[in-house]
C-alpha cells in the first residue's frame, strides 16, 4: 500500500535530503526502539517517501521484535512446564516461600503503567505535549516501583537462603512459614511432631548405630488433613530428600533456579524499558512528537505492553501455585 502513495508524494524527498547527515535518525528511532539513541531533526528518513510508509515500517519492525521476544522467553516457559509437569511437589513446596501480596502489587503497578503507556501514544498522536510528558513520567514511576518491590523480594530470598543450586539452604522449614500454617494448620502441627520424631530417631541411630524405623507405633495414625499437604509438598513420601525424617523434596532448588531466571530476565526487560522511556521523555520535552511522527512512542508502548504481558503469565505461574 505504501509504495503507491509514495509515488504520489515524491517531493518531500527534498526535505529528506536537505540534511543528509541526520536523515537516518528517525528510522533508527523507529527500528532501534532504544537500540540507537538519536534525536532526528528531519523526522522523515531520506529512504522513506511518506510518513505513512515510515510509520508502517517501524510498526512492522517492532512487531517482529516482539515476535523474537516471545520466542526468547519461550525457552524458560518450556523449562518451567517440564519441571512442573514432572515434579509438581517441588513447586508446591516452593510457592509457600513466595510473597503473593508483593506479586499482586507488582501486577497492578505494571497494569497501571501499561495504561499510561497506551495513553501516552494517544497524547503523542494528538500532540498533547504536557499530558504526554505526564503519562511517560507515570509509566517510568510505575516501572521503578516494580523494580523496588522486586529488590525487596530478592533481598528477602537471599536472606532466607533461597538461592538456586547448591546454595539453596532455607533458613526456615516450610511448615514454620505463616503461609503454610494459614493454609494447613493441622498439617503444620503434624509436621512439627514428625520433625521431633526425626530428631529422636536420629539420636537413637547415633546411639544404637542402626536406623530402626519402628518407633511410629506410639502415635495414632495421622488424618488426611495432617498428611496430605506434606506429601503434596514432597516433605515426606517418595519425593522426599531424606527417607527417614520429614525434610524437603529432592532438587527443591530447581524451582528457585527457574524463578530467578524468569523474574530476572523480565526485570532486565523492565530496566531496558525504563531507559527507553527516559530517552523518549527527553524527546517529548523537546516536543518532537505529533500526528505525523509519533512512531517511537507507539513502538516503546508496544514493547512495554509485551513486558506487561509476560508478567501477566509469570504472576499466576510463580506466585499462585495451589
Amino acid at each position, binding site marked *: 500500500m505504501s509504495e*503507491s502513495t509514495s509515488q504520489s508524494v515524491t517531493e518531500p524527498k527534498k526535505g529528506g535530503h536537505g540534511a543528509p547527515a541526520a536523515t537516518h535518525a528517525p528510522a533508527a528511532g523507529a527500528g532501534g526502539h532504544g537500540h540507537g539513541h538519536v534525536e532526528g531533526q*528531519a523526522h522523515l528518513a531520506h529512504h522513506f517517501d511518506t510518513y505513512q510508509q515510515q510509520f508502517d515500517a517501524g510498526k512492522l519492525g517492532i512487531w517482529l521484535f516482539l515476535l523474537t521476544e516471545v520466542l526468547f522467553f*519461550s525457552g524458560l516457559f518450556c523449562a518451567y512446564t*517440564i519441571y512442573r509437569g514432572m515434579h509438581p511437589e517441588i513447586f508446591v513446596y516452593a510457592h509457600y516461600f513466595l510473597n503473593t501480596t508483593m506479586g499482586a502489587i507488582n501486577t497492578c503497578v505494571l497494569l497501571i503503567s501499561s*495504561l499510561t503507556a*497506551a495513553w501516552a501514544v494517544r497524547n503523542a498522536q494528538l500532540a498533547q505535549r504536557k499530558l504526554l510528558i505526564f503519562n511517560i513520567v507515570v509509566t517510568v514511576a510505575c516501572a521503578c516501583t516494580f523494580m523496588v518491590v522486586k529488590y525487596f523480594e530478592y533481598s528477602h530470598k537471599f536472606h532466607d537462603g533461597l538461592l538456586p543450586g547448591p546454595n539453596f539452604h532455607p533458613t526456615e522449614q516450610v511448615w514454620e512459614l505463616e503461609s503454610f500454617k494459614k493454609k494447613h494448620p493441622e498439617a503444620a502441627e503434624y509436621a512439627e511432631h514428625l520433625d521431633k520424631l526425626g530428631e529422636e530417631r536420629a539420636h537413637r541411630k547415633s546411639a544404637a548405630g542402626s536406623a530402626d524405623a519402628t518407633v511410629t507405633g506410639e502415635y495414632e495414625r495421622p488424618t488426611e488433613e495432617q498428611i496430605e499437604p506434606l506429601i503434596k509438598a514432597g516433605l515426606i513420601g517418595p519425593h522426599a530428600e531424606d527417607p527417614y525424617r520429614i525434610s524437603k523434596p529432592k532438587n527443591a532448588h530447581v524451582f528457585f533456579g527457574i524463578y530467578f531466571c524468569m523474574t530476572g530476565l523480565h526485570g532486565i526487560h523492565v530496566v531496558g524499558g525504563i531507559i527507553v522511556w527516559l530517552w523518549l521523555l527527553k524527546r517529548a520535552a523537546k516536543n518532537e512528537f505529533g*500526528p505525523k511522527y509519533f512512531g517511537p512512542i507507539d513502538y516503546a508502548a508496544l514493547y512495554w505492553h509485551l513486558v506487561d504481558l509476560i508478567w501477566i503469565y509469570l504472576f499466576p505461574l510463580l506466585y499462585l501455585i495451589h
Partner: protein
Amino acid sequence: MANDDTPDTEASADADKQPKSQQGPSEEQPPAHKDDATAPTPKLEPTKQDEGDADERDSDSDVSAPAPVAAAVADGHAAAALHADHGLAHTMPIWMLVAVLGALMLLTILTVSVTNYDLGSQGNLVVGMVIATIKAGLVITFFMHLLWDKKFHLILFLTAVLFVVLFLSMSITDRGEYQGNIDLYQNTTSAAAK
C-alpha cells in the same frame, strides 16, 4: 502472510499508473513537509500546521491518497474510517483505555482470590491460565490496539504463539516419554545410597 501480500501486490501493481493522475495534489504539499522536515527544532505550531494539513489531505483523501485507504480496507482494518481520522494510525478513546484497565484489575483480584478454593488436581492451574489469557487478550486487543491494526501483525503474533506451542509440545511430549528412565535411575541410585 497471503492476506498481507495480495493487497500489496494489487496496490503496487497498478501503482505506476496512479501517480501520474496524482501529480496535481501532490505538488501543493511539499512546502508544509519541507519546513517541518528542515526546521532545526520543530516548535508546537508547525506540528499544528501539520495536523491541519493532515486533515485537509484526508478530507479530500479520494484525490490525494486513495491508495492507502483502499489498501487499508483491503488490508482488513477493522475501522478504516477511524484510521483515516488521525493520519497514520487509530487513536484510542480514553474511556476505553480506563475501562480495559478496570477489567484487568478485576481479573487480577479474581485470579488471586480463586487460589483460596481447591479446584481439583489441575483445576487451579487451568483457571489461572485461562484468566491470564483473557488479560493478555485484553492487553493485545486494546492497549496494543491490534484490533485496529494490520491483520498481518496479528498473523505475526499468532505465528510466534504457534512456534512456542510447537517448541513446548514436542520437547514436553518427548520428556514425558522418557521420564521413566530418569525416575528409575534416581530411585535405584538413591536406593543404593541408603
